């Protein structure tokens, strides 16, 4: 009669993904490439926000985009029209990008010729929050029409991001979206998160987003140089 015995594990369920994300992180640091993981519900403004940044910064930084969609080429095509290298990952059903998928996408890019990669994750406020992609920073967009209770329904994503962009502020007039309630709900989960408000459509507040991204890219690259990379 075989005895039942216990084996202590104490390991994260997503340990393998985290390991691969760590490898990605190390490789990006070696090349001095800043990677941002941008997440939101479908339609909140990920593509618009990336296009704003790319148009403003493409003469200063060499940017590429990794597009994640269940099955479409639409967003990658928009990037290519801007003259930006873009890799489209079609997940074929997975509702998020994970480290192995992002690693495969990065292999299609020439990291030596880039300063920044932006991941436009699959439109979803739930699953992408769980999967480390190896990005240096994570950002989430919440648009005004979605309502100020999203941090209550999806606390995880707001707790793991470095930046929250409130988009479509041009819809505030006449809505019952309460920006103060939103701030309180987000800050109690994540006191260190930076919060920006803007409207991609009218352009109001967009320069703050561009400034944030430019500062992050610059800080990352100087840090990489200090730590011994000779990439210029």
């Amino acid at each position, binding site marked *: 009669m075989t005895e039942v015995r216990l084996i*202590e594990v104490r390991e994260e369920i997503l340990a393998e993904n985290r390991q691969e994300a760590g490898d990605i992180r190390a490789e990006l640091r070696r090349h001095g490439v800043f990677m941002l993981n941008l997440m939101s519900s479908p339609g909140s403004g990920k593509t618009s926000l990336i296009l704003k940044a790319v148009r403003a910064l493409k003469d200063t930084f060499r940017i590429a985009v990794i597009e994640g969609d269940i099955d479409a080429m639409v967003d990658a095509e928009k990037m290519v029209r801007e003259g930006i290298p873009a890799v489209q990952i079609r997940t074929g059903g997975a509702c998020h990008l994970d480290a192995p998928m992002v690693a495969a996408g990065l292999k299609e890019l020439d990291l030596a010729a880039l300063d920044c990669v932006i991941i436009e994750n699959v439109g979803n406020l739930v699953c992408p929050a769980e999967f480390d992609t190896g990005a240096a920073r994570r950002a989430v967009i919440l648009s005004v029409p979605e309502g100020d209770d999203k941090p*209550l329904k999806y606390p995880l994503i707001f707790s793991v991001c470095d930046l929250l962009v409130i988009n479509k502020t041009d819809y505030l007039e006449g809505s019952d979206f309460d920006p103060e309630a939103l701030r309180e709900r987000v800050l109690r989960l994540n006191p260190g998160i930076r919060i920006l408000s803007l409207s991609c459509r009218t352009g109001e507040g967009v320069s703050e987003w561009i400034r944030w991204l430019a500062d992050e890219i610059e800080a990352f690259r100087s840090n990489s140089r200090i730590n011994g990379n000779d990439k210029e």
Partner: protein
Amino acid sequence: MHELAVTESLLQVVLRHANEGGAGKVVSISVRIGGLSDLVNEWVQRYFDHLSKGTIAEGAVIRIERIPTTFCCDACGHVFPADPRTREAIRCPLCSSAQMTLATGRECFVQQIEVV
């Protein structure tokens, strides 16, 4: 939903430890999942039953311990449980401060496995 992706990863972790430990069969798996995660227990078991067929973890029972979400008050250091999904403002029950940091709730790990 992403229970499938998470359960695939769970199976890999379990099989690795079971094989390293020379196990013949996995009987049960104890998992700790924090209050911020929306994983549904029933679906994790269902997906696991499907994915583990043909492996030594087939038939293993998954015991999920939910770790309550707690906050640490930035003002007085008191740690207290609270529902992150509440519409009410969350205040420290000792000093009423509204400044706090998440203490627990983001956990998603395998604690131990029972094997024969």
